[in-house]
């Protein structure tokens, strides 16, 4: 009997599956995204003299509102207009969702080799490469919608890609330089104590943070789906579950990038230091929880910005990215090179 349980546990916690589907992959992503959406609405409400979602569960402060929304989206009729390119219209959001989660397969959550889904040597590069895929499907969704606002929205997204992609990659490479490795585990292990890269290299950290905001259209860069100009941007024609997936995918992308940011800059699982031979709980679950909590805090800060900022104009955002953020990322990279040359880490 015990053998069966062990087998089932080992199946569930088989890293390639667990990592991608449960945590930090799809299931954890959905849970955290639901929490973050609730948090975002409550935060905005607190700042804005309102109460926010409340009536669904007054005792929990309306925490079940998002579940209710999810149910509503699931049972709403998905309307597919006659004029859309049907296959692309349906496949784009689904592909976007899947592609958004995929980078988690390359992100380690524990230093122990048996928890890695794939052999780690250049995991930073793999994760970075995988995060850059989803804009293609956003553009496809807008183009397939055959709606003027959607086309404008997806064109804006295409412009934004030129703004954030380079910044994000360069600023993350700034942590690889001092460690002399693309291996995320080694990058985390280098950040012992308070020697986090966020503190050692704030320029690169800030650049990466802003790049995440840009890539997931968070304020002040909520440009592709800016409601007052292009209705919902690429998602104007979507309804029902497909719309829910569209919206969820952006947040899941933000979540995945936040996890990557946590690993690269915020010391990953760092207060914990699982030793070889640690069990499932101490060696896998506990570091995972630490990573997720840190990533959630990063996302919460991003959510708070919704209450403080408006949105930039498209050309201003691109201009800002190339003129301020990119030099900042390059300076961060240079700083990383200096650290690497001096062997500070």
């Amino acid at each position, binding site marked *: 009997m015990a053998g069966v349980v062990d087998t089932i546990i080992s199946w569930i916690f088989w890293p390639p599956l667990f990592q991608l589907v449960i945590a930090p992959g799809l299931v954890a992503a959905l849970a955290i995204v639901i929490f973050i959406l609730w948090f975002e609405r409550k*935060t905005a*409400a*607190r*700042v*804005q*003299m309102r109460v926010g979602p*409340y009536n669904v569960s007054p005792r929990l402060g309306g925490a079940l509102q998002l579940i209710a929304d999810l149910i509503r989206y699931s049972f709403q009729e998905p309307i597919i207009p006659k004029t859309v390119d049907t296959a692309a219209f349906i496949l784009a959001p689904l592909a976007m969702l899947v592609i958004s989660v995929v980078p988690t397969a390359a992100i380690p959550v524990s230093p122990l080799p048996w928890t890695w889904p794939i052999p780690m040597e250049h995991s930073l590069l793999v994760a970075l490469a995988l995060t850059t895929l989803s804009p293609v499907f956003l553009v496809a969704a807008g183009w397939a919608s055959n709606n003027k606002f959607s086309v404008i929205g997806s064109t804006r997204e295409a412009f934004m890609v030129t703004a954030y992609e380079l910044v994000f990659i360069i600023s993350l490479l700034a942590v690889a330089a001092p460690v002399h490795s693309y291996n995320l585990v080694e990058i985390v292990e280098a950040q012992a104590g308070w020697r986090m890269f966020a503190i050692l290299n704030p320029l690169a950290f800030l650049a990466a943070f802003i790049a995440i905001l840009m890539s997931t259209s968070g304020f002040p860069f909520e440009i592709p789906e800016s409601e007052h100009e292009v209705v919902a941007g690429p998602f104007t024609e979507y309804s029902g579950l497909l719309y829910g997936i569209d919206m969820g995918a952006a947040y899941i992308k933000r979540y995945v990038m936040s996890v990557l940011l946590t690993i690269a800059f915020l010391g990953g699982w760092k207060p914990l230091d699982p030793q070889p031979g640690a069990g499932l709980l101490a060696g896998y679950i506990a570091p995972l929880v630490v990573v997720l909590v840190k990533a959630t805090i990063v996302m919460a800060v991003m959510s708070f910005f919704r209450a403080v*900022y408006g949105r930039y104009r498209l050309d201003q955002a691109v201009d800002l990215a190339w003129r301020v953020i990119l030099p900042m990322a390059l300076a961060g990279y240079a700083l990383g090179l200096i650290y690497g040359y001096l062997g500070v880490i």
Partner: protein
Amino acid sequence: MPPRPSRRRVPPYGFLAAVKGNLGAIAVGLKYFLDPNRFTLHYPREYIRLKPGYRGFIVLNKAKCIMCESCARICPAAAMKMVRFQAPDPRRPGKMKLYKYPVINYQRCIFCGYCVDVCPTEALRHVPAHDVVYYNLEEMDLNLEQFQVEPKSPAEVEGGIPVRYVFDPERGLVKVPEKGQAGGG
């Protein structure tokens, strides 16, 4: 001193001001995040105890009505109209008399209060209720009997807590639960 123009310019803005602007905006946001200032009225659970002067629903006191038609004449939305009855005159037996009383159609009423203000005998008055609900449009066209019944706020009927808002120099409006018997106003 009479009004006069004053020419100004928008304060200039540089890089340092932009950094300061970012920090200032985030600081103000954080201030309200930690100490929110909410005016929200949780409506069916709470309701506002309206002030005596509020221009709410209108009720007729038929005993005071002198059938002068002023209210129906001044009504800008043609919501208030006179209904006419021919009935025996109690003072002069055997003679018929034309009675005229106002009725109101809440589909059209805009609550301007002209009728109440123009009534020379105060036969019409406002009641402190503004959230009365009707199930269909026909019900909103009141007849003479219905016009004399004082409508009640559904929140009050369902046991909501009456509150009132008081002014505060720090927080704008502060919601204060009001003790006391129902009705009033």
